[in-house]
Structures are given as structure tokens and as C-alpha cells.
């Protein structure tokens, strides 16, 4: 009998605020060490935290897109432990006591894996502050502390153990990142640390209670989450099949070796001595505030996909790709507004444009090409000004220079040759130089005509109108017009 995989995720998301959770310091990444600090985030004696309202608002946005119940009053707590990256030696966090709920609880997010729709429960959404960073120089027995990240707003999202495979975990993270990006809550990039994920994994026989779980940490991309979980599932399966027992422990993912390994277990469980943060008043969320936040939310990806399918007559697959990020969907709709050829625009975006983005590791909003310029390119092709073949070259130049397609076509003299007289001469020359394919065509092998068309295109550097070339060749060789 097979095992069922049970996975729950704990995700930390850095909120897109200008300033920190409890002080006015900037959250900008990459500043010189300890330059974005003040008495509050350095934990200096006498300093006091003040809740960043924008951070709460972003928490509310996340809670709403995750379909959670928002609690009208929630409380911050202190989580007490000693570590040099934690200047107060306690972290201000929202911890769930019966009498003190976190910001939001009990929501869900729907995912799709292999065409199957699955609903993943969200246990809780809460806010907390980040810690500083330790820097260990190669030389000398010292460590340095950089407090620039100390106090940066974080949101923790905890799922119920509803995921049944590493693939589902991956799909969930992709979907979560997508909705958080749409709601402008976070950039959600694991590679940059704005989204971090730990996973609880266990196996059980179907219908039996949950098995012993391990916690897997240290995964730095969505792909590594999937790999780490696949490894851990296989490892636990092997343990169980050998008749062994899974040990409840924290395991670290080693990306290079592709394994998880048990980290040194602490002799006793840590006691964080949580208690309500007396320096802060409860976070009060009025129905009016919540409604205001709800109204400010954008159309979410699933709804937008369905609308794009209906409104522009696109297939589900294409529409799904177009709503992958809000910027992509915005680009598409802006281009279609400038020139209503949704299918062509979608094809360009999902083809050449997306290949370029992948190749250069760029996001669509980093492009030099505007939606209006892409629309213009499509219009030039449809009007017959340039061939589709030439359009690809134009696009490359647009991407590199940011120039409009019209000016590139003019500058390069790439306007399509639609002059029958001029093309007839080239057709004659091609027929003269390629007697064998001509004979093949005349012998009924119509496919050979493609070769002749290609030769004409080549001699005109691709500027000939392919349909016109086809017609002229057929006329000249005495074939009936193409059906």
C-alpha cells in the first residue's frame, strides 16, 4: 500500500513598504551596513516601536486575496530569545493566543495541478519584524552585525497541511507569489529573499492520522523547494519501508548536493516566553478600513484570465500565460487597446518577446519597448508594410534601441516589396538559376515551390511579400492559383 504525502508551508514575505515595521527607516536593499538605522531598530534604551500603518494595510490586502477572516483587533507579542542579529533580544511578532488572534486566519488559495483544481487552506497571516544580518569575514575570529534589515516588515503565512505532493507545493508558491504581486504586497522573489519558505513534511497511509513530520529549511528558490521536498519524501518513504521511524527534526536543504540533512538538534525545546507587547496598542481594523482596502484591490489573476479569454477570444493556455504577472497582463491589454489584434499581440508576447525576456532574465516592465510600439509592429505586418519575417528583425532592434518600429523600418529600408514588376525580374532569375526544382514543380511536386519562394525571399533580403511571390511563381510555371 502506498503512502500519502502531507505538506504544510510556512512562508515569510517581505512587505513592499518604504519604511520599517516600527520606525521610519528606509527598507531599501543594498545600502552600506548600518546606515538605515535609528534608536528604534537598533533597540537603543528608551526607544519605542510604533506600528507602520502601511504594513498593516499590506497585511490586510494579503489576508483578503487569501480569503481570510480578518480580526477586528489583533495584538503584537514579544518572542524572547538571544541572538546578536536581534538588537532587543526579542522579536515583535503576532503570536496566536486564544485571547489574542493574529491579523487574519482561516483562508484559502486555489491552485491547479495537472488540470485538477485544489483548495489549500491558510491557517494564519500575521505581521512581524525582520532581524539584522550577521556578517562573518573570512579573516579573524569576529562577526559583524548589519542592522539595516532589523525591523523590516515581514508577513508570515502558514498553510494547513493540505498539500499532497512537491508539485502541489510548487504550484502553491507560484500562485501565492502571483497573487501577492498582483495585490502589490510583495515582490515575492525567493532568490532575493523577499519570499522565504519552510516546509513541514510527513507521510502516512491514506486514512491514518498524520505521521511524524520533519521541517525542511534553507531553500532559496521555488524550484529548490520542489527538489528538497521530493528528496525528503523519498527519504521518509525509504525510512518507513525499512520499518524505521521518521524522527521529528529540522533538516536543511543542501542545494549543491541535492539532499536534506538533520541540523544539530537542540537539547531542549526553546521557550520563547511570549507575552503581549506592552509598548504597542492592539491593531484595530474597522469595517470601514477593511472595505477601503478591499475596494483598492486589483482584479486578481484567475478573474483576469477568465475575462481575457472572454473579451479577446483567447484560449485558456495563452490567457493563463498572459496573466502570469500583472505587468504582463497590463502590457497585453494596453497593446490591444492601441491596436485591436489580440491574437497577434498575444503571439508576439508569448513568442519572441517572452524568449527575449527569458534570455536576458528581465521582467516585462524593464523592457524598452512600450505596448504601443508592439501594437504598431503588429499593425505594420497586418497592413503589409513589412513581412512577418522582417518584423522579427524589427522587434530585435526595437528591444535593443527602444526606437519605434516605423522609424526602424524607414531607416533600414525594410518596407516590403509589393511591386510586381520588380519582383517578376527576381522570379525570372530564380527560375533560370534553378532548373531542377522547376522541373520538379512542373512534374507535379508542388512542395518544391517552397524552395523557389525561399530563393526569391533570399534575393530580396526577406523584403518581398511572400504571398505575391507565391502567386507570381505559380503563374509563371502554369500552376493553378493556390486554394
Amino acid at each position, binding site marked *: 500500500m502506498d503512502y500519502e504525502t502531507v505538506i504544510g508551508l510556512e512562508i515569510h514575505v517581505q512587505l513592499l513598504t518604504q519604511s520599517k515595521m516600527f520606525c521610519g527607516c528606509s527598507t531599501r536593499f543594498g545600502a552600506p551596513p548600518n546606515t538605515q538605522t535609528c*534608536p528604534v531598530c*537598533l*533597540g*537603543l*534604551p*528608551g*526607544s*519605542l*516601536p*510604533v*506600528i507602520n500603518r502601511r504594513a498593516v494595510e499590506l497585511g490586510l490586502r494579503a489576508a483578503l486575496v487569501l480569503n481570510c477572516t480578518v480580526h477586528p483587533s489583533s495584538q503584537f507579542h*514579544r518572542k*524572547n530569545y*538571544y541572538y*546578536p542579529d536581534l*538588537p*532587543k*533580544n*526579542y522579536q515583535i511578532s503576532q503570536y496566536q493566543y486564544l485571547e489574542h488572534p493574529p491579523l487574519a486566519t482561516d483562508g484559502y488559495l486555489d491552485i491547479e495541478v495537472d488540470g485538477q483544481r485544489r483548495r489549500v487552506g491558510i491557517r494564519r497571516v500575521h505581521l512581524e519584524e525582520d532581524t539584522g544580518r550577521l556578517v562573518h569575514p573570512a579573516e579573524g575570529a569576529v562577526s559583524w*552585525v548589519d*542592522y539595516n534589515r532589523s525591523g523590516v516588515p515581514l508577513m508570515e503565512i502558514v498553510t494547513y497541511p493540505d498539500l499532497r505532493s512537491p508539485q502541489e507545493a510548487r504550484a502553491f508558491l507560484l500562485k501565492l507569489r502571483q497573487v501577492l504581486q498582483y495585490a502589490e504586497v510583495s515582490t515575492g522573489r525567493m532568490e532575493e529573499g523577499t519570499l522565504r519558505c519552510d516546509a513541514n513534511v510527513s507521510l502516512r497511509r491514506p486514512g491514518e492520522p498524520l505521521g511524524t513530520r520533519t521541517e525542511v529549511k534553507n531553500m532559496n528558490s521555488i524550484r529548490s523547494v520542489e527538489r528538497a521536498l521530493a528528496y525528503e519524501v523519498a527519504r521518509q518513504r525509504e525510512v518507513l519501508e525499512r520499518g524505521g521511524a521518521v524522527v521529528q527534526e529540522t533538516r536543511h536543504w543542501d542545494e549543491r548536493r541535492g539532499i536534506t540533512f538533520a541540523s544539530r538538534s537542540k537539547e531542549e525545546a526553546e*521557550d520563547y*516566553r*511570549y*507575552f503581549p507587547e*506592552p*509598548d*504597542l*496598542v492592539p491593531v484595530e481594523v474597522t469595517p470601514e478600513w477593511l472595505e477601503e482596502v478591499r475596494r483598492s484591490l486589483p482584479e486578481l489573476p484567475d478573474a483576469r484570465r477568465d475575462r481575457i479569454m472572454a473579451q479577446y477570444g483567447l484560449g485558456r493556455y495563452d490567457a493563463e500565460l498572459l496573466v502570469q504577472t500583472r505587468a504582463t497582463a497590463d502590457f497585453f491589454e494596453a497593446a490591444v487597446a492601441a491596436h485591436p489584434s489580440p491574437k497577434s499581440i498575444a503571439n508576439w508576447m508569448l513568442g519572441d518577446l517572452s524568449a527575449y525576456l527569458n534570455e536576458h532574465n528581465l521582467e516585462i516592465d524593464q523592457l524598452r519597448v512600450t505596448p504601443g510600439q508592439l501594437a504598431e509592429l503588429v499593425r505594420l505586418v497586418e497592413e503589409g508594410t513589412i513581412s512577418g519575417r522582417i518584423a522579427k528583425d524589427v522587434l530585435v532592434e526595437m528591444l535593443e534601441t527602444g526606437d519605434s518600429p516605423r522609424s526602424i523600418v524607414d531607416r533600414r529600408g525594410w518596407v516590403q516589396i509589393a511591386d510586381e514588376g520588380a519582383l517578376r525580374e527576381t522570379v525570372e532569375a530564380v527560375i533560370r538559376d534553378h532548373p531542377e526544382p522547376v522541373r520538379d514543380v512542373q512534374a507535379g511536386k508542388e512542395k518544391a515551390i517552397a524552395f523557389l519562394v525561399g530563393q526569391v525571399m533570399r534575393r530580396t533580403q526577406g523584403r518581398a511579400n511572400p504571398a505575391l511571390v507565391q502567386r507570381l511563381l505559380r503563374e509563371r510555371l502554369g500552376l493553378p492559383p493556390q486554394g
Partner: protein
Amino acid sequence: MRELVGRPYHEIRPRLGKDLSVRELVDAYLENIARLDGQVRAYLTVSADQARAQARELDDRLARGEPLPPLAGVPVAVKDNLCTRGVRTTCGSRILEPFVPPYDATAVQRLREAGAVLLGKTNLDEFAMGSSTENSGFFATRNPWRLDHVPGGSSGGSAAAVAAGEALAALGSDTGGSIRQPASLCGVVGLKPTYGRVSRYGLVAFASSLDQIGPLSLDVRDCALVLQAICGRDPHDSTSVDLPVPDFVASLEAGVRGVRVGVPAEFFGEGLQPEVRQAVLEAVRVLEGLGARVEEVALPTLEYALPTYYLIACAEASSNLARYDGVAYGYRSPRAHDLYTLYARTRAEGFGPEVKRRIMLGTFALSEGYYEGFYKKAQQVRTLVRRDFDRCFQTVDVLATPTSPVAGFRLGERTADPLQMYLADVYTIPVNLAGLPGISVPCGFVEGLPVGLQLVGRPFEEATVLRVAYAYEQATEWHRHRCPLLRA
């Protein structure tokens, strides 16, 4: 210039810019510090140069005919657990001995803006944990009335400074009585405002849900003046409340006719020194004679207040004091050789025994398995204490009690027995648990030691408390007495 010292500000102020400069006033106080502080030891740091510079600047403003700010030239002392930019702030602890804050506490900043001149930083029990100022990590302060007696605590340095004419007024902090009890023992006025009335930003936290900053002064009018300057909402402290601040001075003279004064029997029971009891009851009769209506009320939870307070205060302190670890500022043990010894030795060497005792007590109270029985239970009792007061205030406007169960005690008399020391605050602690405003005003002497009357009001009714205290003060002479040291 000796005649300037020991006189309330409202008597001095009309002379400023006429026959008296701020510089002369400040110099008179600095001279008196030089003359007496070797005996009293109220100050940890005297910032004479800065004080003189500030005085000169004020005199220049006066010379230009600028209007006098409300506390122009008041030479103030500030308890050394309030951050002062550029002036060392030790909290009376070796662990913060080298700490110079880069910022002013909001209350200090507001004092400066009101024209007060900062003379220096006063001694306290380490991290404000104590009732005698003997727990200071540096030295004990003495009671200016009798130098072999304690000044009370933890704001003992501030109270002694005002009593000895080493400051015209002072700021203290009060977590369980730390302004009122030393005010009582030193024969000055001390007020703890309602929790949330004065910003705690820049007050080095002992117990965040109990701490309040307040003034110590020679009389009630000066007390109202200083309170006026430091009150009000501060965006840097979420627990400071956004309520209008009334004109405390203007309402002082409204009298007490018809004011209902409650006398809680529980505050006059066992452990109260008979002479103190007599002095306080006599004070109540004075109020009655002025037209107040006196009635007996009940505060049955008084007996639970002390243990409740120590659980909550120590729990919060155990977390608040975790940051003193030798990593980023303050003392670092030279004997540390790894992370664990950095923490352990820095804290073992930096903290004194009372602070360690409370950190351990608080850590225990918050620990898994004990939280429900200790910390949470204490919070529930705290609610009951608050309700007791609420009930009293349905029938009376203020409560009158002794501030301290005894007029005073000798240095060393209670240091061996922490419980005896804790009992020194038995009448002031419930007021902090309920977050109420309370004042101590002089109401007599026992063997040359002052006695204090505590008046407690409804939340944010400092004005009522001050008005009753003022009426009492005006009807008596106690606030005009000065300690023998100052008179010599």
C-alpha cells in the same frame, strides 16, 4: 545668591530679566550642588557647561525681548533613566556606564523647549528597581533631612536634589511609587501622571505597562507648571493618549468645597507607622475643614497588589533588560571569548543583585507551564484592582492615603530583606496597576523626617488631584519647610 535656592519657581520667575538673569539662577544652583552634593550624592552627572551655555542663550533671548517660555531658566535635574542627547545615561547601572544616547527623551525635549535648563542626571536604584536608591550601581544617595537615612527610591536622586536645593524641579519615573515615595521621604511634591499622559519615549523601560514620567518640585504650583510642559500625545509612543491637556495651573485655585474624598480603610491597617497614620488622618481633617466631603471606601484587593505588581513588573523587565548584552553598546565583559560568555559574563558583571533577582523572577513567570499561573493570573488580578478603584470613584473624586507606610528608614536597614524593601511601596503600587494619577504632598514630620499624603484621582484627572493637593498645601505650612542642610 544663596537666597535664590530652595524657593519655588513661581516666586523667582517675576524677577527674571529684571534684577535676575537665568545665568545667576543657574549658577546659584550649580554652586549649591558643589556645596552639598558631596554629602547628599544626588547626581551621577552634573552637566555644568551645557547648563551655563543654555542659560546664556536664554538670557540672550530675554535681552532681545522675546517672551519668556513657561519654564524659562528653571534649573532641572533629570533622573538618569531618561535619555539626554550627548549626556551619559546610565540608569544607575554599570552595564550602561558608558552609554551616551544620540537622542533626547520626549519629556526632556519638551522641558528644554519650555526653557528649562538641564543641570544634570540624578542617581536611582539600578534600572529604577528599588525603594531607597541604595541599589544604584554607583553609590547610595542620602536623605537631605537626615543623612543617615535613605531618600526613598527609585527616583531618590531627583527627590533629594529638589529637597537639598540642588535643583528647582526634577523629573522622575514611577513604576510602583518611584516618584511619590521618595517625594514623601524627602518632603517634596511628586506626581505620577495617568498612564499614557506623558510620553515614555526615551525613558529606559523597566516595566512598560506601569512606567510613567512625572515631576518632583517644591510645591504644587511648580508641579503643575512642569507637568503642563511634558504632557500630551507623542507620535513616538503608541501608548501616549491623544486627549486635550487642560490648563493645570489655572484650575489650581478652584478649592475643594464639595469635593468627595475617599479614605480606603485598607491603607490604614497593619504595617503603618502610627505617627504617619496620625499625620495623614489629620491632613484628611484639614481637607474636610476646607469643605471637602470625606467618606470611607473599600479597596479589598490591596493585599494582592504587591505580588501582582512584582509578577507583571518583573516579567516585563526580564524582556526589557534582555537588550543589555554587550553586543552594540554599553558594558562588554573583557573576559568574554565567545557568544555565550559575551552574554553571560557581560550580564553577570554588569547587573547588580536586585536587577538579577527581578530578571530571574520575571523569566520564571513567563516560562512555559508557569505563564498561566503567574503572568496571566497577575493580569487578571490587575483587572480586579482596576475595578476596585473604578468602584470607589463612582462615589468619591479623590482618594487620600499615606504615600509610604513609614516616614523613612536608615541606610542599610532594609537591604538584607527584599520583602521589607518591597513593602515600602505597598500604598503606591496599586495606583500604577490601575494606571491612575497620584501625587504625594508633604503633610508632617516624624523625628525630623517628612511625611507624605498621597492623593489619587480618576484617569486623566490630574487637574483634580492637583487642585485638592494645592488646597491642602495652601492651608498648611509643611511645604515651606527646608531641610537643615539647605538652611545651614
